[in-house]
Every structure is written in structure tokens, then in C-alpha cells.
């Protein structure tokens, strides 16, 4: 299936990018950005995840079915987060009768 094999150079570059991103996460942790600390850390993490999936796990060159599996998994994570936040973000929004 995956006749495409990336060159060693590509792998090294991706690896370097991952290391840089890790250093960036560490560096940002020392700066106080208020609530944005989390946002920045997560954004970097998502980029790293994409690099690993697309290059190291060959999703870039895989079949539609493989991509569907990846997409499905992300969607399920989305369900978990969305529905949990549906509770968390609306606590106390509606009154409880009799209380």
C-alpha cells in the first residue's frame, strides 16, 4: 500500500521539529500568559500530534480507510470533551426546582 517512503532527511527534519516544539513548550511554561498558557501548550501539542501521525505513522500516504479511522478516533475524543463540557460549562445555569 505505502509505496511512498519518505527520505531519511524528511524524518530527521520532523524529528528536529518535534524536539524544537518540546523545547518551546518547556520555555512557554516559564512565561506567565494567564489562561493562554494552556492554549499555547495545547496548540503546540496538537501540532506535534499531527507531525507524528502524518509522517511517522504514514497517514500522509495511507488509504482513505486509514484516514477515516483517524478521523473517527478524533471525533470520538471530540464527543467525550464536548459532552463533558456541556455539563461543566452549564452547572448552575438552570435552577433546580424546590431549591
Amino acid at each position, binding site marked *: 500500500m505505502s509505496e511512498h517512503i519518505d527520505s531519511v532527511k524528511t524524518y530527521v527534519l520532523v524529528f528536529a521539529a518535534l524536539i524544537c516544539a518540546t523545547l518551546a513548550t518547556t520555555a512557554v511554561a516559564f512565561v506567565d500568559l494567564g489562561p493562554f498558557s494552556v492554549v499555547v501548550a495545547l496548540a503546540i501539542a496538537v501540532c506535534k500530534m499531527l507531525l507524528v501521525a502524518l509522517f511517522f505513522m504514514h497517514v500522509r500516504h495511507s488509504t482513505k480507510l486509514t484516514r477515516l479511522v483517524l478521523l473517527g478516533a478524533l471525533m*470520538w475524543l471530540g464527543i467525550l470533551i464536548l*459532552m463533558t463540557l*456541556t*455539563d461543566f460549562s*452549564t*452547572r448552575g445555569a*438552570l435552577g433546580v426546582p424546590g431549591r
Partner: protein
Amino acid sequence: MITAAVQEREHYLNASYGIKSWLLTKDHKRIGLLYLATITLFFFLGGAFATLIRIELLTPQGDLVSSETYNKLFTMHGVTMIFFFLIPSIPATLGNFFLPMMIGARDLAFPRLNLLSWYLLVVGGLFSLFAMLAGGVDTGWTFYTPYSTSYSNTWVIATAVGIFIAGFSSILTGLNFIVTIHRMRAPGMTWFRMPLFVWAHYATSLIQVLGTPVLAVTLLLVLCERLFHIGIFDPALGGDPVLFQHLFWFYSHPAVYIMILPAMGVVSEIISTFSRKPIFGYGFVAFSSVSIAVLGFLVWGHHMFVSTQSVYAGMVFSFLSYFVAIPSAIKVFNWTATLYKGSISFATPMLYAFGFIGLFTMGGLTGLFLACLGIDVHVTDTYFVVAHFHYIMVGGAIMGFLGGLHFWWPKMTGRMYPEGWAKLSALTIFLGFNLTFFPQFILGYLGMPRRYHVYPEEFQVLHVLSTAGASVLAVGYMIPMIYLIWSLRYGQIAVANPWGATGLEWKTASPPPLHNFDETPIVTHEAYDYTTVMEEVIEVG
């Protein structure tokens, strides 16, 4: 002895002998039998805990065991039955054995992984068993925090590790099935020619692969908090206990469909075979399995209506819960429509299938009561809930399992079970079941809380009825255990297709040859096409 004179045909059971040929086997059929032996042991272990619970509940006082012991009993009952019996029950035994055969494959896609998944279940089981012998666990099978992370002085860690390991067994089985269904179908076996048993297992596998990792993560977080006091769930450490319930039920509501979907697949096969008609609305029944799997992930909050979950989220989850009932109802109506003008015979598997339909319907409809916010506040954490899920899990899933076991027993072992005894035990189980669990609906509605062993005297009559039913049920379960083992030696020799069924598994000898089929089957018909079977029967004589 005619059989002795004939050279014995080689099949998967006599192809090799010795303990090593079993413990290192990569044959999906033998692995299915290994699983069968394992889960049977766990079933009787879980049954022993249930027996003690029911005996304790004979009287309003707590006179047999202390409160602490009682807490451990219902916890160990739930943990054993759910994680080590029901989750693996049909997929890992009947699914393992028959899914490849039904699509005309020689084995699962990853035979070694299949063996590994059995070992994982055994190792996980041993961890939990160790915890039980060492002193037990008392958190309930639900491990609610912060009790499980900060207060319980019992063997939470060993049990959780056991469930964690067994979870990977479940994930690997699901993965194996998905890949097998995608890549190993025989020529001509298109998606819409697959038996509904296979569709049901496809849907089940999706849940196992998508849901179980979340359970694993959740249990790890519990361990982190319990061992290293990292604040995740305990408010005293800055955590949120309701977060645990979200994570736990994100897996555990879909998990109830891991238990029931395979049983629905079995029932589809049985209903079709014993009314000699294709399943009415095949496509609808196939898709309803998949939609149950997907919708099942959107309703978990119905277990948390009184957990301080927000009222708005409660309304959303309540609303969505009603949707899951639609595909379930589609199945029930289509099975019933299949019976219409069918040529029905009342063999034992069919009795179990009828039992399933009736009891699952009651369990499902009471699920709708519970999904209704206002009613749930009244009956949550009472025996009404206990009755609800036992109607589905015992009345539904175990009936499906026993029905399937009888249906395929001739194929698995090459022997028939004794029909008279089998019918008697099916009837005993049905009566015993209803006597055990119907009174629990009333008890719960009247206010008997679950997980208590001391109760007001006015509840005693109903509790005594329930315990009486449980003893009938126990007898009902012992009889098949005895005659099935008996039949291995003394049962009538089974022919290749004793029921005149249509699946590919019936087109090969009983018991099947080592590689299932002497030559790869080529599929030219839809599933459940009885005209071809009739022709074959006429040809053979």
C-alpha cells in the same frame, strides 16, 4: 459400533493432542473453547457471590454478613460478571469460533493476537481474583471517586489493574474482528450478504476499540490519585469527582451494548433458522446495530442525573437516550415480523430467542422510564435499576449466549445436546429469572435502595420471592452445565447441518476441519436464502 469401523475424519479437535497444543494454539476455534472454559469459571464465581447476596437478603436484619462484607460481595459480583464474564461472553467464544467461519475465512486476521487476548483476560482475571482472595474490594463495580481513590481500605489497585489488563483483551478482540471482516471475506461475501451475527459483531468491535481505551485511562487516573495523590477527582486535592463519572460512563454505557449487541446477533440467526425465513428488513437490522453503537456513545449522562451534573446536560442526555431505543425497537419489530407466516419450530435455541425478545423488551422499556429525568430522581439507586439491567443482561444477554451455545453446540463439538433436558432447563431459567427479578421492580418502586443489606420489614416478602427465584435460576443454570458436558461423550453424533440453517458454518463438517473449509467457499446468495438449503437437502436425500 459403526463409527469405530470408519477411519476417523481429521478435524480441529483431533488434529493434535496435549496441553501444549491447546495453550499455544493459534486456531480461532480452540481459542474460542479456551475462552468458553474461562468465562464459565468466572460465571460460577460471580454466581457464588450472587448466592451469598440473595441469602443475606432473606431477612431484614444483616445477620449473615457484616455491612463491610456485603459491600465486597456486590462489588465482586459486579466486577466478575461484567468484566470477566459478560464482556467477553459471546464475542470471545461464539464470535471467535464462528465469525471467521460465517464469512468463509480460515481464521481471524491475527491469530497470534487472538491467543494473546485470551492470555490477557486470564492474567487480568488472576489479578482481580488475587484481590478477592486477599480481602476483596468494596467500591461497587463503578469505582466512584473520591471513595475509591481516597477512602476505601480495600484492594482497589489490584482489581483496577486486573480490569485494565482485561480491557486490552477486549480491545484486541475488537481490532481482530474489524480487520477480519474488512479483509478476510470469501469471494462473493459482500457486506450485505453477511449474516447479521457478523454485523452485530462489527458494531460491537467498534465500541470495544473506541470505548475501552477511555476506561483504561480512567483507571490509570484513579491509580495516580490513589497512589501518588495527584488531584484529579478528589475535591480535597483540587479534583472533580463528577469528572470520574463522565469518563467512567463514557465507556460503561457503550459497554452495555458490548454485552447486548452480540446477543442480538445470535437471536437474528436463531429466529431466521427456526422460522425458515430471511430476517425481515435485513438492511434495517444490520444498520440498527451500527447506529446503536454510535448513538450509545451520546447518552452516558443518564447515569448521572443526580450526580450534580448540570440540569441542562441532564436534559440533553435524557433526550438523546430516547433515541437509542429506536434502533433497539427496530430489531424487536423486525424479528417479530420475521416470525409472521414462518414455519416455526420450537427447538431449544428458539425458546431462548423468544425469552430474549420478551425480557429484552421489558428491560429496554424500563430503560426509558429511567432515562426520563423526573422518574429517575425517584427510582435511581433503587432495586428498580437493578431489575432494569438484570432484565437486559441476564434475561437478554445470557439468554442469547445460552441460545447461541445450544444452536452451535453440534457444530463446535460434533454432538447433539439432549433436547428434552435442554427445553426443561430453558423453561426453568425463564421462570426462575422472572421470579428473581420481577419483584425487584416493585421493591425499587416502593423505595428499596440498592446496595443495602438491612431493610424495612415490609419489603421481606418480595425479597424472599426474589431469593426463591434465584435458587430456581441456579438449578436452571446447573442443568445445561451437566448435560452439555455429558453430551461430549454420549450425545448423538451431529450431522453437518442439523437445523437446515443457511450460514457458511453449516456447509462444512461438524466438528469443522482444522482450516474450517476443505475448499474456500464461493458465495452466490444473500444471507438466509432457504431455497438453496432446501435444494441441497433434497439432493442429499
